[in-house]
């Protein structure tokens, strides 16, 4: 794919993700989905990063990484199946919505306790280095997550052992109701220095900028095998989750379609570059909408997982305790 195609393709993933996002949020309001953490506003950050990844790279993602997953080739079906928790869901309907798994694209399984994906990400990077494999590890998390114990442990260890990890902090300015200014008295990217690691700040609202900076950084990681902390600043345009009401704690909403919307920013830039025009944009959007609507309706019809699946996968082999409990409950 040439550079232009690659960028248009990135934009297309952003639109697909936004379309899916809105579909799920709407479906949640209609009672068709139980819960969801919207990703609106973080599309450029994630896609810009993803555009630099290779097949063998491992990704320890967090719950808001739908754009990243879609761009990397995970099908919307996978996302929707997880959100509905139907019997096609790779996780067998076990996790609440927004906790995806996609091993076929090297995505780990998302946990809820924030940033606890980071130390395992470092361990995975150790594996790669030790086994002399190709590839790097991406570990993503929010601004709030920088306060956690796991953030500290992971960054220090990745630096100490010279491991190829890209720590992507998706600074969307909020941790539920708590603003990033109160989370810490330092800029996030500057925390890297305290670990003896490179740190960079990038405008995560701007697809092209994000693509460029991530490229520079990821190229370095591939060469020198050392970690980097990227702080990509965007904005959480939606509520924290479908259970959240941001009007309780903030007034500075960024509206969809406004100047600060990363999709609008991308469109402006791509038009300036003559990569796309209004017609192309319209086509991309219509296609995305039709695709998502169709898929969603289709996936919704898939049955729930069978009750007996509840007792699978605790261990590779079951044991008498689980067997008895299954017998008693089913």
């Amino acid at each position: 794919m040439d550079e232009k195609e690659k960028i248009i393709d990135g934009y297309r993933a952003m639109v697909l993700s936004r379309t899916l996002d809105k579909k799920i949020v709407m479906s949640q309001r209609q009672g068709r989905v139980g819960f969801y953490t919207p990703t609106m506003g973080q599309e450029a950050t994630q896609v810009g990063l993803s555009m630099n990844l290779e097949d063998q790279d491992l990704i320890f993602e967090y719950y808001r990484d739908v754009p990243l997953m879609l761009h990397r080739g995970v099908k919307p079906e996978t996302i929707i199946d997880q959100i509905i928790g139907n019997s096609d869901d790779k996780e067998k309907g076990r996790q609440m919505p927004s906790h995806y798994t996609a091993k076929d694209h090297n995505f780990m399984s998302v946990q809820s306790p924030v940033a606890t994906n980071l130390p395992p990400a470092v361990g995975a990077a150790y594996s790669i280095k030790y086994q002399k494999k190709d590839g790097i590890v991406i570990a993503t998390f929010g601004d709030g997550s920088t306060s956690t114990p796991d953030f500290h442990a992971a960054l220090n260890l990745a630096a100490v052992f010279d491991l190829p990890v890209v720590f992507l902090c998706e600074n969307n300015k909020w941790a539920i109701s708590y603003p990033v200014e109160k989370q810490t008295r330092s800029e996030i990217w500057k925390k890297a220095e305290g670990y003896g690691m490179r740190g960079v700040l990038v405008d995560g609202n701007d697809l092209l900028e994000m693509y460029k900076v991530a490229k520079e950084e990821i190229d370095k990681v591939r060469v020198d095998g050392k970690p980097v902390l990227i702080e990509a600043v965007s904005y959480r345009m939606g509520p924290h989750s479908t259970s959240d009401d941001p009007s309780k704690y903030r007034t500075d909403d960024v509206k969809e379609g406004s100047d600060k919307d990363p999709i609008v920013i991308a469109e402006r830039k791509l038009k300036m570059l003559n990569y796309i025009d209004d017609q192309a944009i319209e086509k991309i959007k219509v296609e995305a909408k039709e695709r998502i609507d169709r898929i969603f309706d289709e996936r919704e019809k898939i049955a729930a997982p069978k009750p007996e699946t509840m007792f699978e996968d605790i261990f590779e082999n079951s044991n008498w305790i689980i067997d008895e409990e299954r017998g008693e409950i089913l």
Partner: protein
Amino acid sequence: MSSKTMNIVQSINSTLDYMMTRDTSIILLGEDIGIDGGVFRVTEGLQKKYGKERVIDMPLVELGIVGMAIGMSLTGLRAVPEIQFQDFIYTAFDQIVNQAAKMRYRSGGEYNVPMVLRTPYGGGIRGGLYHSQSGEAYFAHTAGLTVVTPSNPYDAKGLLIKSLRLNDPVIFLEPKKLYRSQKQEVPEEEYEIPIGKASLVHEGNDFTFITYGSMVPTVMNTVSKNNLDADVIDLRTLVPYDGETILNSVKKTGRVIIVHEAPRTLGMGSEISAFIAERAIDYLLGPILRVTGPDTPFPYRLEEHYLPNEMRILKAVHKMQQYR
């Protein structure tokens, strides 16, 4: 005596308010508890009333929330940390079991930690693996912790007031499934429910049901719908549990069924069962049965299969009835 109709959320909220007015050493801290009023709205309005210094919105670090609460409670304050979901408490586990629980002992009684750690726990809200856990056994196994869980708005108030007057750490577990599921008359004046005292919420002769928290309504409904002639004991305090009330009932009925949501292996039911098997074996007319969550992580879509329900309780009743 005046009273108000309230759910558990309202009861805890108004009790915190009541106590904060009277005991100026009480201080709340947690994620999203201030301006947002808590993700379950339990602390709604309190920051507005008592200020940002007393109802503290915290950075995202449970270890720090509990750790700071310990330090506050060591130095003249009475901290009430909130852990947003009990599932996230494990990142602060060392502070709880190695610091708070052992402070009085290790300092030879020189220091103590009068902290009330509040946290919603249990399933019933479609939270899946990480928003549904019932981890009470981890705390109940830890010497130095008092573990409390109300099952209704009235008890919530009395237990919380009492907890806020203890001089040792309390793990105050709030069954989130019941937060808004029932309303009850709650007196406006203050009252304490003693720690270590169970509540006999139903009386009968054939069975002893021992339960607590979110399973109390489930057991009560099963008992009344099926006209079971049974004692139902709501433990209210898990440590120290009320051995006397348990024994009295067991000696009367001889048939014990323990019900809880947490996984069976080493769940609270195992301790209660062992206690009975140690003290009242002669009175038993059948096995001691446990109806609990299974030893699996908590599933999202199949939540209703995970949680003990009427059918499973009746299965245990029938098993018991067929005995001998």
